[in-house]
């Protein structure tokens, strides 16, 4: 009989025999090793001489969850899934981690959510954060527009790697919002008891119930599970590879915090009575990280065929002077080139040093204190929706809180 993963087997090895459930071979590791889940729960890898079937494994149907009754008086919140495992549960028999796909799954995973809101949930696609593309941003934006008919707020679970790009793109595309759009992620996957997903998700739902009319990111404030911060979608950046409090507002204060209650620190845009969506994106924009020794032919190829480019320059916003001719030429040909800083913190200024002044004279647009990734998304969006002179003008204007005139000591 055919032996498949899930079957209970006896494996003969040169060191004796081992009994347990045959597991699927993980993508790494050597081919001749089989992985067995022993009766005591441990997995071990053994070199198999022979595998004998003891009994076939049971095919497990995906568990059906009971229907959820909506409660009167609670707002409806739409959860728009994009993939990832912010909400997931473990099958201890096989060790598989299953993502929450439906509203029922979400409630099963985070039961206390039902006290906050009636939940609608749908996956628009299931991809890894790093595989995100502008076309997916547009899909999410359109889905948000569709949900406006049913919902009082939107929560978007999202992988953390590119969450700030998505939050920036939604900020620009959704010109007017009748409800909050809250992106949320987790730095510890939710199959762990210590996951930050639960608090982040609950906090996100709480923010989605407020009178906010902006796109925000809600994530842990500190390493402790005591509160979350609300970051403006155009100001937030992942600043640590693994910590719970990886997300920081750069060049601005967070908009507020969520403990038991939501607390806004200052001004914010309120809910509008309608939703306005401009969902065009010109993908012919590059984001260029300058480094000492960068060759002009590389820069040239990065600009080839592009309608715009955002440069992450050094310090106040510089690149080496031997790159100037290429930039001049491309700008003359109609490419929009904006300057941001690798420092991330602080405002670019092209007036202080001669290279800066030359860049400015060449037509490079200094982009104030905008984050490079936000500038990149903004330029794509502007090029998709406005003519060139408008694009150049709007790049320097504050549209969604992405630029500020004043910065302070924290």
């Amino acid at each position, binding site marked *: 009989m055919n032996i498949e993963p899930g079957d209970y087997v006896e494996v003969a090895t040169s*060191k004796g025999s081992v009994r347990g459930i045959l597991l699927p071979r993980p993508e790494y590791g050597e081919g001749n090793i089989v992985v067995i889940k022993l009766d005591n729960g441990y997995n071990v890898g053994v070199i198999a001489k022979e595998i004998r079937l003891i009994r076939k494994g049971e095919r497990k149907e995906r568990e059906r969850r009971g229907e959820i009754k909506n409660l009167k008086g609670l707002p409806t919140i739409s959860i728009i899934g994009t993939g990832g495992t912010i909400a997931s549960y473990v099958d201890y028999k096989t060790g598989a981690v299953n993502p929450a796909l439906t509203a029922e799954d979400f409630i099963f995973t985070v039961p206390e959510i039902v006290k906050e809101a009636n939940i609608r949930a749908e996956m628009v696609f299931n991809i890894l954060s790093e595989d995100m593309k502008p076309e997916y941003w547009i899909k999410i934006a359109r889905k948000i527009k569709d949900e406006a008919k049913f919902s009082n707020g939107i929560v978007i679970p999202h992988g953390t790697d590119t969450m700030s790009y998505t939050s920036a793109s939604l900020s620009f595309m959704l010109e007017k919002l009748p409800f909050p759009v809250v992106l949320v992620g987790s730095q510890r996957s939710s199959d762990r008891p210590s996951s930050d997903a639960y608090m982040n998700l609950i906090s996100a739902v709480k923010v989605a119930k407020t009178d906010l009319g902006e796109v925000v990111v809600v994530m842990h404030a500190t390493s402790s599970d005591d509160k979350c911060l609300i970051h403006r979608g155009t100001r937030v950046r992942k600043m640590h590879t*693994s910590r719970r409090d990886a997300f920081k507002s750069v060049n601005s204060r967070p908009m507020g915090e969520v403990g038991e209650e939501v607390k806004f620190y200052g001004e914010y845009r309120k809910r509008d009575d309608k939703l306005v969506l401009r969902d065009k994106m010109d993908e012919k924009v590059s984001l260029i990280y300058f480094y000492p020794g960068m060759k002009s032919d590389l820069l040239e190829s990065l600009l080839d065929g592009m309608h715009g480019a955002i440069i992450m320059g050094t310090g106040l916003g510089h690149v080496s002077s031997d790159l100037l001719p290429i930039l001049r030429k491309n700008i003359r040909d109609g490419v929009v080139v904006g300057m941001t800083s690798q420092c991330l913190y602080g405002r670019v200024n092209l007036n202080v040093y001669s290279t800066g002044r030359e860049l400015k004279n060449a037509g490079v647009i200094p982009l104030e204190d905008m984050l490079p990734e936000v500038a990149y998304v903004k330029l794509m969006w502007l090029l998709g929706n406005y003519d060139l002179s408008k694009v150049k003008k709007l790049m320097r204007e504050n549209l969604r809180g992405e630029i500020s005139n004043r910065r302070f000591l924290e």
Partner: protein
Amino acid sequence: MKCGIEIHQQLNTKKLFCDCDSRLSDNVIGKVIRILRPTQSEMGEVDRAAVEESLKKRKYIYEITDNSCLVELDEEPPHEMNLEAIETALKVSLMLNAKIVDEIHVMRKIVIDGSNTSGFQRTALVAMNGYVDTKFGRVKIPTICLEEEAARKIEEKDNYVVYRLDRLGIPLIEIATSPDMKSGEEVKEVAQKIGYILRATKKVRRGAGTIRQDLNISTGQGRVEIKGVSKLNMIPKWVENEVKRQEMLKEVAEILKERDARVHKEIYDLTDIFTNTKSKIIAREIKNGGVVLGLKLERFAGLLKSDKFRLGRELAERVRVIGIRGLFHGDELPAYGISGKEVEKIRKKLNLGDDDSFVIIAGPEEKVRLGMEKVIERAKMAIHGVPDETRAPKDDGSSIYMRPLPGAERMYPETDIPPIRIPNSYIEKLKRELPKMPEERVKDLVSLGISEQDAWQILHMGMEDEFEKIAKKYGYPTIVARAMINGCRDIDYEPVFKYLNEGKFAKEAVDDIVLRMCNGEKFEDILSEFKESVNVDEVIERIVKNKIEFIRERRENAFKPLMGIAMKELRGKVDGRIVSEKLREKVEKIIESSS
């Protein structure tokens, strides 16, 4: 009787999944607060309530120490498993005749008491099907695991627990035997032998709390784990007492069944009976607004407390863990200030016959009601026999109820750590590098001139290498052995025997010197007291000169009496062996010259 043992030994490598030092620390440099929740799995509607409960209830406060990093904080994925720790675990496995797996897979074992910041303990099975032989026979060792130590509990309150991260992540070797052992002496022997093997690797941590043993004891009904039996010498006593306890419980069950005993659910409020009680405990509880509740135990009389039976204690232990101390039962009353009249009133109110007994608990009503639930639960179990329990050992050889035995462990793969391939060539290499087995090591030591018993003792203390070095370099094997056995582990013995060998003091002084060093005195300071030491050569010269005729007359027979004279003067100041050597030399010279 079937008994098994589980041994957990900390290693002194770096931590298992990061580069922090494996030690305890009092240097607390920060704190974080965390909440853990059971992950959703095969949970039904019922468990959902438990989830909510767990959410509002407990916060875990973690103290960050100088020897912890983002990994212990669960803020950074684990690094690859420490190679030195793996190697140590594999060597131990080989010494225990176990078969090493071809690929090690790290698992996550769910633990949500907060002792792991992640909510799970990382653990990996490294070898299977080993055994250990002692004079009692062979005991199987089905599994040997390498896992991470939990955080150290510092403080526990109703709504929070404080843990320190210093201990979290220290590598632990877990060795579990089959329940093959038949006596406490055998368990002790096996524990000792495994202990020797662990220490032979020289990679284990030493000192209080660095090795922990759990006993599994079953006498045919129920499984009992006695957790944390640290003193090996006490193991036979704990086993013996636990077997007695289980036999007693089985007998109790037989009698209860025969009598058709019953546990009723009704709980009676008896507070009125005690309005003027002389019992201080009950009076105080009532004064604080508490109640006295009673429970009828039909046909339980004589089993709660008598010469033979002690079921009452079992009931009391169950409520002690929720903080109730004021439990009394029918077999022990009247006593403790509770009068005969009060007992009579209780019996009347509960409508008890001669065969019936009862339990009363005084305290705040909510707590007492919870306590009564526990009593009912335990009393019902008594009819069936020995319940599955985790018990804590007590110093007097008895044990006390801790909690029910945990169910099957929930495990799933640690996806952050790729499987570790263990090639046969590596195992062969390790086999060539294995330390000697304890028996061989004992033979080595015995060959240096000490008794087998002392050799085992030195091995047990882990001082065999130091002993061997000193005894080979300076001699005095029995004195070195005695000094180490009576002394302590953390002093440097070598200079003592170096200076003894140089004749700075006599061997009679060694015990005293070692004792003083163990009490914290510096060896140099003690040595300075022997500074104005006599000139041995001068003394011997003088004695020989005075007795020269005697030597010429008695020849070789003169040595013994002269030695007596010399030692009278030099005892405690110079080692007799040196005196003897020097004296013999002189005497022989004179005999030679005179012949």
